[in-house]
C-alpha cells in the first residue's frame, strides 16, 4: 500500500530506529573507537592504536577464548538440536501426560539463569550432589564436574542444553505439525516405514525449522555469560572463560575499557561470520537437494 505521506513510514520506524541507533549501532561504533585507546575509566584515555588487539591475542589467549567458545557452542547447538528434535518426535502425542512433560521441559527455558545455575552447582557437587550419588550408584569414578579443567566446559554445555532444549523442542513441534498428514499417509501407502518417512518426508520439510533453531541456538550459546559467572567464574584455570565472560572480566575486573572493546569488536565479527556461514550452509544444502 502506498503511504499517505512520504514522512509516515519514517515516523513510524523513527522511535525504533532511534533506540537502535542509540543502543545498538552507536555503541558498536564506540566500541570500535574505544578499542584503539587504553582507558581505565578513572584516568584519561591514552591512544594506543592496535596495541589492545595485540594484547588480547598475546600468548594465544584470544585463540583459546575463541576455541573454547566455539567448542561450547558446538556442544550446545548439537545437543539441543538433537535432543530437541528427539523430544519433539517423542512427545508429539495427545494426552495430558505428554502435555505435562512438554511443559516441564519448556519451563526450564523460561526460568531465570540465576536459579538454574545455582541449582546445578548444588546438584553437581562432586561429593554431596545428586549427580555424584548417581555416579556412585553406577560404580562410576568421581568427577569434579566444575573443578576439573577438562570437565568444566562440557558440564556448562550440558547445563545449557538442559535449559534451552525446551525451546528447540517447541520450535520443532511447530515444524512437525506443519507437515501435512496427507504426505505421511501417501508415504505410508508407498510402503515406507517410520524411519524412511522421517528421512524423506519430514526432514526435508523440517530443514528451515532446523536451520532456524541451529542459528538461534548458536547465537544464544555464543552469548553465554550467566552460567559462567555463577557456576565457575571463568575457571578452573580459565577453562570456562568464554568470550562474553572475557569481555566482562576486562571491563569490570581489570577495568580495561580498551581491551574489552577490542574483544567486543572481534566477538561481533566472529558472530556475524558464523551466522552467515550457518545460514549459508543450510540454504545451499536445500537448493542442491532440489527441494
Amino acid at each position: 500500500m502506498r503511504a499517505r505521506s512520504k514522512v509516515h513510514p519514517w515516523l513510524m520506524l523513527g522511535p525504533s530506529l532511534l533506540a537502535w541507533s542509540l543502543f545498538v549501532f552507536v555503541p558498536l561504533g564506540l566500541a570500535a573507537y574505544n578499542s584503539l585507546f587504553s582507558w581505565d575509566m578513572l584516568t584519561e584515555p591514552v591512544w594506543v592504536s592496535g596495541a589492545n588487539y595485540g594484547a588480547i591475542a598475546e600468548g594465544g589467549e584470544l585463540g583459546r577464548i575463541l576455541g573454547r567458545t566455539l567448542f561450547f557452542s558446538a556442544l550446545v547447538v548439537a545437543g539441543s538440536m538433537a535432543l530437541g528434535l528427539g523430544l519433539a518426535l517423542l512427545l508429539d502425542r495427545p494426552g495430558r501426560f505428554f502435555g505435562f512433560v512438554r511443559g516441564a521441559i519448556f519451563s526450564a527455558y523460561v526460568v531465570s539463569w540465576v536459579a538454574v545455575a545455582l541449582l546445578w552447582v548444588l546438584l553437581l557437587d562432586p561429593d554431596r550432589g545428586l549427580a555424584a550419588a548417581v555416579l556412585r550408584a553406577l560404580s562410576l569414578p568421581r568427577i569434579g564436574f566444575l573443578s576439573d579443567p577438562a570437565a568444566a566446559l562440557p558440564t556448562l554445555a550440558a547445563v545449557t542444553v538442559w535449559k534451552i532444549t525446551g525451546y528447540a523442542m517447541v520450535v520443532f513441534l511447530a515444524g512437525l505439525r506443519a507437515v501435512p498428514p496427507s504426505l505421511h499417509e501417501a508415504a505410508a501407502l508407498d510402503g515406507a516405514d517410520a524411519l524412511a518417512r522421517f528421512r524423506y518426508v519430514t526432514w526435508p520439510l523440517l530443514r528451515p525449522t532446523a536451520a532456524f533453531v541451529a542459528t538461534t541456538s548458536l547465537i544464544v550459546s555464543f552469548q553465554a555469560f550467566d552460567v559462567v559467572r555463577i557456576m565457575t567464574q571463568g575457571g578452573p584455570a580459565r577453562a570456562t572463560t568464554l568470550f562474553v565472560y572475557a569481555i566482562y572480566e576486562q571491563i569490570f575486573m581489570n577495568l580495561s575499557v580498551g581491551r574489552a572493546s577490542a574483544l567486543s569488536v572481534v566477538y561481533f565479527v566472529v558472530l556475524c561470520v558464523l551466522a552467515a556461514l550457518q545460514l549459508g550452509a543450510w540454504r545451499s544444502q536445500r537448493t542442491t537437494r532440489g527441494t
Partner: protein
Amino acid sequence: MGGRVASHLVARRQVLAGLAATSLGAGCSRPVRDAKGRIRLRIWYTLGGRNRETFLEIVRRFQERNDDVSVEPVYQGDYFESLAKLRTAIAAKSAPALSHVVAEVVPYLARARTLTALDAYPGMREIPFVRGIGQEGAFRGGGDLPLYAVPLNRSTPLMYCNGELFAKAGLAPPRTWQEVVEHARALTRPGGERWGHEVPISWWFWVALVGQAGGSVFDEAGRPTLGGEAGVAALRLWQDMVHRERVMRPPPGRDYDAWNVTNQDFLGGRAAFIWTSTAYIRYLEDNARFPVVAAPLPKLARASVPTGGTFFVVVEQAPEAEKIAAARFLTFFCEPENATYLSMRTGYLPITEPAVAKMRADGFFAKHPNDDVAQAQLASVDAWPWEPMLFRIERDIVDPRLESAVLLDRDARAVLAEARALSERPG
C-alpha cells in the same frame, strides 16, 4: 475493544513515565540529606554472616549516638565484585563516601586521585593503629603518605592444624618447609580420603612463601621481580606437594569458593592442616568437632607473612558533608570499645593498640590462644610496596598463572618469567 488496548498502552505509558521520573531522580540528584534533613552516609560493605552482624551492630551504635546522620549500609557481594562496582561507580560519579577495599588496591585508587586524604578530619591522624595493620606498617613508606586508608578487617595468613590428628600422630605444627612436607606426608591417607595439607592457590599465600624463602615480590625500587629464585622455589613447593608427593590438595573454585572449600575440608577432617586467613579463627573454632590449633606459618630463610583484608576508604568525589560524616564514623569505629567488640566477635585482628591492650587485660588472649598466635605473628609482617600496579599484577597476571601452574604442573620458572615480563609492561 480497540479502544481498550490503546488506552491500556497509554495508561502504561503514564505509569512508566512516572516511574521513570522518580527513579531518574533517584539515580541523578543523589540528595545529600534525606527527608528528615539528616546527612546521608552511604557505606558499601562486603561482609557476610556473623561479620556482617557485628559490623551492622557497630553501625547501629553509631546511628544511635549521631541522629544528624542517616547511615545507609548496602551489601555488595564479595570483595572483587564490590571493587568492580566501586570503580564503575566512581567513573559514573555516583560512588558512596565510604566503602572498604582490599589492601593491595589502595595505592592504585590513591594514585588515580579518587581517594580523600583523611588527615584533615578531626582525630584521624591521632588514631593509634597497630603497626602493620594500619596504613603505616602495611605499606612501605605508608607513614609518610597522607592517610588514605583506615583498617577494617585486617588479617594475615595463619596455619590451622587438626589438633586431634596431630596428637594421634604425635606431631607438633610444622615450623619449616621441610617439616611441612614431612608432616603432610605423615598425615595423608590415600585415595583422597584425607590430605595432609591444603591451601587456596592464591597470590596471598604465595607471597608469604616468597618472603619465607628470603625474596620479595617487588624490589626496593618498586620493580616487580616476583621474588626471583624465591618465587620459583615457592611455586615449586606447591607443585611438588600436589603432583609428586601427593600430599596436598589444591582446592577447586575461583577466589573465595576455593577458600570456602579449604575451610570445609578442614572442618570435615579431609585436610589435616590448612593455611587460610586469621579472619576464620572464630568460624573454624566454632564449627570444628576437634580442637583447632593455630600456628604461625613456617620459615625457610625467615618468617614472613603479608597482610590482607580490607581498608576503609573515602572517595574524593563524594559530597563534603557525607565525607565529614564518614570521618566521624571512622573515629567511632576505631574507639577501643568498638574495635574490641569487632575483634572479639569475629576474630579479625584488633586494629588499635588500646584495643589490643584492653583485650589482653581482659584475659581474652589467655582464653583464646589461637588469637594470641595470630597477634604474635604480626612481628613477621612484610609490608606491601605502595605500587599502583600491585593489584593488577596480582589479579590479572600472577593469580591465574599460579592456578594453571599448580593445576597443570607447568614449568615454574617459565611461568614466572612470563608473568614478570607482563608485569613490567605499563598499563
